[in-house]
């Protein structure tokens, strides 16, 4: 059971108020017209699945309904940091094989 701090409501609330929306910082293809099937497949279906720190997108669904980010350890379930959309993570993710098309990868997004 998580107690999650919503960075907008500035309050710790119970897990049930939130929805986990998967991997964070996935960047939409900048030039969709020229994308190969393989690259599209990668963008739509292939997600990082690290055992360890993971950058995630969450939504405060039954509260303010805003999206925010979380770095969480998927093995211990410890929440390492919470940050707002537009902000950058301070804690790195566990090593995972980067997306072949690194325009989508979170590392890239972090650098930008």
């Amino acid at each position, binding site marked *: 059971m998580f107690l999650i701090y919503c960075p907008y409501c500035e309050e710790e609330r119970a*897990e049930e108020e939130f*929805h*986990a929306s998967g991997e964070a910082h996935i960047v939409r293809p900048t030039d969709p017209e020229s994308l190969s099937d393989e690259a599209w*497949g990668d963008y739509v279906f292939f997600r990082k*699945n690290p*055992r360890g720190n993971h950058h*995630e997108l969450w939504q405060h669904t039954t509260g303010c309904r805003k999206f925010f980010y979380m770095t969480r350890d*998927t093995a211990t*379930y410890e929440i390492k940091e919470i940050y707002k959309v537009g902000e950058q993570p301070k804690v790195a993710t566990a090593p995972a094989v980067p997306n072949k098309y690194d325009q989508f990868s979170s590392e890239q997004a972090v650098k930008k």
Partner: protein
Amino acid sequence: MQHYSGFGLLKHAMSHHENWQRVWRNPTPKKSYDVVIVGGGGHGLATAYYLAKEFGITNVAVIEKGYLGGGNTARNTTIVRSNYLWDESAFLYEHAMKLWEGLSQDLNYNVMFSQRGVLNLGHTLQDMRDISRRVNANRLNGIDGEMLDAQQVKEIVPDMDCSANRRYPVMGASWQPRGGVARHDAVAWGFARGADALGVDLIQQCAVEGFEIEDGTVTGVKTTQYGTIKAGKVGCVVAGNSGVLADMAGLRLPLESHPLQALVSEPIKPILDTVVMSNHVHGYVSQSDKGDLVIGAGIDGYNGYGQRGSYPTIEHTVSAILELFPIFSRVRMNRQWGGIVDTTPDACPLISKTEIENLYFNCGWGTGGFKATPGSGHVFAASLAKGEMHELAKPFSIDRFNTGALIDEHGAAGVAH
């Protein structure tokens, strides 16, 4: 291998059951094998068994980081059925169903496969249309299935509340009489015993922590206990940890690992002699031979490897069961646990070669792979033995997520099971 029989039981009773042979050896691994299977769950053990039995490949090791069957194999709610919508999955699960029907005899091990029937309930008009489509598709594929109305459901499960004044009234169901349950740990043990007897080395308490890869071909696995073990071919069957193994090989898989929980009640007198599943209220329940109600539902929404989940999920599960069976409201729950399921975007498994030569994955069974255990092992063994994917396995390759040839079973498999 000591053959099990009624007579044997009697004979051993004379010596107070103190002289039973060990069920499998505990060998030190050799330096090299023709095939190394990573993961000693039901699917990995079944693969090893069929490799040895059907394809004559006995120089095989199964490497398991914990104990045999300690992953999802002995954590699931044991539902077995084959009434999937699409041809590809229907054929695969029906292949497994046919093997289940002779499994105890084949293994000389009682896996307690009990064909007590599976009901998939419908609570809305759309549910009923989907069920009708699925039952018809099943029948065209030679898989048993019937459409039942609420009255017929009530006759099969008299203690379920099928009245029209529920919030989610039961309007009908699909009924697969050949479906049922099996004893999950016995399935792992039966395959392990059979494989061991045919010469397969079962290596427990030893994790694979890397691969030896030369020029794009896998040549062995690095282990925590025995250093590098050479292998002609490597088959990874590690369910929730598949992403971790793929990382070791520099591969990506279209999988995310989630906790899936189950719980059992205190034992009660026989009240439910079939399996009840509902996508709509999202829960499923059966009663074990010990008398406990075996209950499960959906995954926890976040990624996790912790083999435990959150309380809100348990609460949803239990409220779904009470919607169907208000009569269970006073039953106390005894135990609760979680497994880590490897879910794919189309709710179908990955049985596939990879970019690395001789490295195969069999995973992505997510919330519903127990029912496939013998079939999955059989087609995976055939693929490893021949170096070419088995006909039934071909549609389940990883590259379907790049070609777009998905097998979207979310309709039929919408509920976790």
